[in-house]
């Protein structure tokens, strides 16, 4: 880092980027100095990732300039950005799952011999990982690694390319609190060595804890840049959202009713045929939300899919209203009143190329009155779809609009409307607020809480710990297909204990250890 420290490492000026008429970035200025952590704060869809994709050469800006150490650069491809010392750790890691860690490390590097010198590469890699505390097995294949390990590989990969500027896109979303602490240590180390770091986040506490400066984006525009020491979280929140918002989730106290769905010793495999859920037991009671915390890829997805009949049950039993389910296929689960809000809206929950009406009957197209004999009564469908659109405030040009043209929030409202319009007894919701803006998030949370108040049994999987703790009546932490513990009072559980459970330490052990400390 022998370059002129006084000139900013990166300076972006007047950056504008449009996608098919949608302005993602408008006239944004941004700069990072060496030895600085500069956070980009904003809601989902505010344009943070787009701006950084431009800086890393993935997108080309419509307008604006980029300077690296006061030298004007034009990035035509990611290669140009890499050569300028810019490295980005994307939210969805850019790793090749079928390849080994060390292969990913050198992918795309030009200055290597044609035949790959594996030993040297691994040696270099290991010296980097011990320097930054990023340990990972070089011969492992990416798909075998946990999300946290994959993130370490991604950071190593950027360091391996001798990046001067590191961009971390929502890095903590997939980590346990302890893993996040370790990440912060690594960030501090890199900062001390003179790297510039861009930290993209929408979590205020992390931004204030980690960064020197914060730039706030809202709807594609830069609202302001402030020194972290000069501001407060409330202040930042207001800049981010535009008006004062309460983050409180209000939950009416309610006594849970009888058990509506029960699972005993359930085992389920993942797509690769490896065990994903192991001998799991759980009970869902009327009028309560059971939250499931855990790092992505620990079996939450597979558990939910098994509960709605989408995934084969390898062993174990499922009961609805004390009656054992003999054949768990989607249709019979739907008929029993189990409703599913999948994480993958466009991929699983909706048919993007079909219109709002056609999508609104996906779950009941075979039931009366939608279905009449072998035909579908489109008049009934029209009425049904318009009532969903009205009740759930779906913003759509018409009922004949293909749903691929709707925004994420409206997609989610449409899906909620379809799944919840008949007051179902059991609801399985996976990441229901993921990627939504504040208003839509609030709407989705209120809707789910409302169903709870009406007596539905709800299973809620989320990666947002604040959301989980606030909404759940009971909270379970899942690790490698098992529950590490279930608590009846989520509010009382410390962040540290949650993190330890997410990392695979059972609740009783944590309690015992705490007692040990106390005595």
């Amino acid at each position, binding site marked *: 880092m022998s370059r002129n420290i006084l000139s900013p490492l990166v300076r972006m000026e007047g950056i504008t980027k449009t*996608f098919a008429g949608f302005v993602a970035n408008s006239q944004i200025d941004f700069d990072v100095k060496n030895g600085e952590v500069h956070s980009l704060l904003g809601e989902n869809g505010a344009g943070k990732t787009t701006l950084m994709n431009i800086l890393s050469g993935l997108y080309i800006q419509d307008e604006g300039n980029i300077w690296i150490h006061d030298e004007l650069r034009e990035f035509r491809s*990611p290669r140009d950005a890499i050569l300028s010392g810019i490295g980005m750790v994307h939210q969805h890691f850019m790793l090749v799952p079928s390849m080994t860690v060390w292969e990913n490390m050198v992918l795309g590097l030009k200055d290597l011999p044609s*035949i790959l010198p594996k030993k040297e590469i691994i040696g270099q890699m290991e010296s980097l990982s011990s320097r930054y505390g990023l340990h990972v097995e070089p011969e492992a294949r990416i798909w075998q690694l946990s999300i946290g390990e994959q993130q370490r590989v991604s950071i190593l990969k950027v360091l391996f390319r001798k990046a001067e500027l590191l961009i971390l896109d929502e890095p903590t979303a997939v980590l346990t609190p302890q893993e996040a602490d370790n990440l912060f240590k690594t960030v501090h180390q890199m900062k001390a060595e003179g790297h510039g770091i861009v930290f993209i986040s929408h979590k205020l506490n992390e931004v204030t804890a980690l960064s020197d400066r914060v730039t706030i984006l809202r709807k594609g525009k830069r609202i302001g840049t402030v020194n972290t020491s000069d501001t407060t979280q409330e202040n930042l929140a207001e800049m981010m959202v535009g008006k004062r918002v309460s983050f409180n989730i209000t939950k009416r106290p309610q006594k849970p009713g009888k058990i509506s769905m029960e699972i005993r010793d359930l085992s389920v495999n993942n797509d690769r045929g490896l065990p994903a859920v192991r001998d799991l037991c759980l009970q869902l009671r009327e009028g309560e939300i059971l939250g499931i915390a855990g790092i992505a890829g620990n079996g939450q997805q597979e558990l939910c899919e098994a509960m709605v009949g989408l995934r084969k049950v390898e062993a174990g039993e499922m009961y609805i209203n004390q009656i054992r389910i003999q054949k768990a296929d989607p249709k019979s689960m739907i008929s029993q009143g189990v409703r599913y809000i999948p994480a993958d809206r466009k991929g699983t929950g909706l048919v993007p190329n079909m219109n709002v009406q056609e999508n609104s009957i996906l779950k009941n197209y075979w039931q009366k009155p939608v279905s009449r004999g072998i035909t579908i009564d489109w008049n009934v469908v029209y009425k049904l779809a318009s009532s969903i659109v009205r009740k759930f405030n779906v913003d759509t040009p018409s009922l004949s609009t293909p749903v691929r043209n709707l925004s994420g929030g409206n997609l989610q409202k449409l899906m909620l409307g379809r799944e919840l319009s008949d007051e179902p007894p059991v609801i399985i919701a996976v990441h229901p607020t993921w990627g939504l803006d504040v208003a839509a998030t609030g709407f989705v949370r209120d809707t789910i809480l409302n169903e709870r108040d009406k007596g539905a049994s709800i299973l809620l999987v989320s990666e947002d710990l604040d959301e989980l703790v606030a909404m759940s009546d009971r909270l379970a932490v899942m690790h490698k297909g098992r529950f590490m513990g279930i608590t009846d009072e989520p509010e009382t559980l410390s962040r540290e204990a949650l993190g330890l459970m997410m990392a695979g330490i059972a609740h009783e052990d944590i309690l015992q250890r705490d007692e040990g400390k106390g005595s």
Partner: protein
Amino acid sequence: MDILIPILAAAVRSGTPILYATLGEILTEKSGVLNLGLEGIMLMGAFTGFAVSMYTGNPWIAIAASFLVGMIITSIHGFLCITMGANQVVSGLALTMAGTGASSLLGRNFIGETITGLGKMHLPFLSEIPFIGPILFDHDPLVYISYFLVLFMCFFLSFTKSGLSLRAVGDSPRSADSVGISVVRTRYFYTLIGGGIVAIGGAYMSVAYTKMWGDLMTAGRGWIAVALVIFAIWHPMRAAFGAYLFGGVEAFQLRLQAAGTTIPTPLLMMLPYILTITVLLVISIREGKGLIFEAPSSLGQPFYREERE
């Protein structure tokens, strides 16, 4: 033993065109492009090889010409699929139709002509190894080149920088793009090279194997090669095994016909096609869902960098 050697040697010979086609398609598919036009490319390769051989008398020029023609007609598929993002299945079918039609239109005046073609080349020492020698090392040079190609491709895919980039482009184009590998350029390069190699498979049919030109002479070998890529799980070594298996069936069937069997010819002719289905079924059952993870995961999907949800 004495009966076995000529059959196995014939298996290698008749397996070679399929082997070339399979290897070419493996390269193409590894980059994430599905090319179902193999049958058309092979026929164009076979025609070009024959015609150039007849005019120049030099089989090597003929093979080079086939390679070139293979690349040229595959470039249509490449342009449609890589640049225009067209449906790769339909584009491949179109290539098969156009290639089949064009070869038979161009070749209509060549039926019945003969060429000297490519002769045998005994490899000293190697061909004298008992059993193995006459089976593997008593052929024309194109067979030996195919051995080399199999070994080279294994090495290339596993141990080289370019092989790594190729696999990355097929398995995760986004990741490859983010580290500065040009997905478009890589796909064009390997789609075209693959097409050229497929055409050599066709040229082998006319220049080395039959030494004549016949309408539709590849008789579905292009499609068998498409199946073999799956059977081989995208691995060149297994491709060789599969190709020789088919070569063996063909050699066996020809031998039966020559020996004057009572089994009617049309029924014998079905064998390779039934075998293809069987082989595909066996591999699909055995690998189960695993096959999805072995296939290049972007196979058949176009790639645009700035596509946004």
